[in-house]
């Protein structure tokens, strides 16, 4: 690469006294002080805008009919790098009309002290049952408070309207005589 030498102009007397520069700087800072818009977000009252794709607290979600989507396949548990997820597999309660159609977790715990918000659980989930929400502020006073159990996970996650009508398809398939 060719080296290009640049002629530096010698400083004028005014520049060497440094005073006009200081004066110019003072004008700039005064203008900033008086007219510039404040960039501070006053946190508890004001919240920063959350960009789409933000990785906050992982939660479990239900489908529009209020059924749990998780089938306790445990893929998230295995993929989780810090091993924050612990699933106790189980089935759907016998009295439910969906018993024996799918499985469901008996207990589902995410330890927020371990979670690194990587989003791998959301990425790996074949049922789209686990989603990272926009909540970024997780507080508590004991270690136990940071372990989100299944009830809490569904409370935080709520319902996500999805386009996969798995249960509907399964019902129709069963009506036509082939269970799977």
């Amino acid at each position, binding site marked *: 690469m060719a080296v290009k030498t640049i002629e530096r102009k010698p400083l004028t007397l005014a520049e060497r006294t440094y005073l006009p520069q*200081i004066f110019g*700087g*003072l004008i700039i*800072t005064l203008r*900033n*002080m008086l007219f510039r818009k*404040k*960039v*501070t977000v006053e946190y508890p009252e004001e919240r920063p805008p959350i960009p789409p794709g933000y990785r906050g607290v992982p939660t479990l979600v239900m489908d529009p009919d209020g059924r749990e989507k998780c089938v306790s396949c445990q893929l998230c548990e295995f993929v989780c790098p810090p091993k924050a997820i612990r699933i106790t597999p189980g089935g759907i309660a016998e009295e439910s009309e969906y018993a024996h159609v799918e499985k469901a977790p008996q207990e589902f715990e995410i330890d927020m002290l371990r979670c690194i918000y990587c989003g791998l659980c959301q990425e790996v989930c074949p049922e789209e049952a686990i989603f990272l929400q926009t909540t970024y502020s997780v507080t508590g006073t004991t270690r136990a408070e940071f372990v989100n159990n299944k009830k809490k996970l569904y409370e935080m996650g709520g319902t996500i309207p999805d386009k996969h009508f798995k249960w509907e398809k399964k019902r129709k398939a069963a009506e036509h005589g082939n269970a799977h």
Partner: protein
Amino acid sequence: MEITETILRFGLGLLVISLMMGVCMYAVLAERKVSSWIQGRVGPNRTSVPLIGSIPIIGRFLTRLGIFQPLADGGKFLFKEDVVPAHVNKVYYVLAPIIAFIPALVTISVVPMGQYLDAAGELKTLILADVDVGILFIFAFASLGVYSIVLAGWAANSKYPFLGGIRASAQLISYELAMSLSIIPVFMWVNGPGTDGTLSLIRVVEAQSGWWFVFTQPLSALIFLVALFAETNRLPFDMPESETDLVSGYHTEYSSFKFGLFFVGEYANMTVGAAVMSLLFFGGWQPLPGITWAEIAAWSGQPLNVGVLGAILAFGCFAFKTLFFLFLFIWVRWTVPRFRYDQVMRLGWRWLLPLALANVIVYAIVITVLDAGLPSFLQF
């Protein structure tokens, strides 16, 4: 009578000291607020006190302005753990912050703050101690402040305070010269032929009833201002502290109230410096260049220079100028980056000192010519 006089003096002293402390506290707040505004932030705006803070609009406004923040800051300095590291020289370690604090409070006692005519038509000056050596007294005590930094740097017995102390002593001694030389022309002008010689600041202000000295002697004012920045260890001459290369310089090992004393001492020095600057070059309590309160009073027909009103107006004028220079200190701090140590030394010895010397000589000649006319060999 004697006792009443003593109590009155004592009360006045307390008043001036509390005024000074108030200014220092709010100068710290101003520093934080102004730096925030300059950087596009909002600054301290949460601290509140129960009763005043809950007044509907005013309380909220004051809280947002951070008016109660100095109380919290002061409380923090008082109640934090006062760590005395095991390796320090205890006597000097304790002595240093006291020495940092006292000169600033002593010098304020000879700073005149205003003049008014009392009921008997006698000219009174708002000053604690009217000593004739005025400015010399201030310089003598202000330069004691360097001992605090040297002692703190030495007593802390660790490398950063030590380096900070060395830098500070070199810097303060260097700029002291330029500072003292820069005001000599002012006193040459004040002490015209046929007057009693004086170094009193009151006389300096009275001499500025015409044009202020900043207009007649701009170079003196500039040298004095630059040297003042260096003497008060303010940016861009923030050598002794220089957080980036010396952690925080001479007060690295200090905590709690001792650190608070250093901190307040710095602002007290700034306040006195700003006051002296406005007295020497910006006409003190004179309202506008070329006009005095007496002239305004005569022109408007109102007793604006008499009694309490006169005192308040004159003091207000002086306070306004002083506060402006305090603001200038803060404003420059958040505008100009710090000089390198060798640059500071070069500026002090190779620019300001020769310039101040030349300034003295030029003004000596000019003032002589103005007073006595041209010498015979130059007359045609």
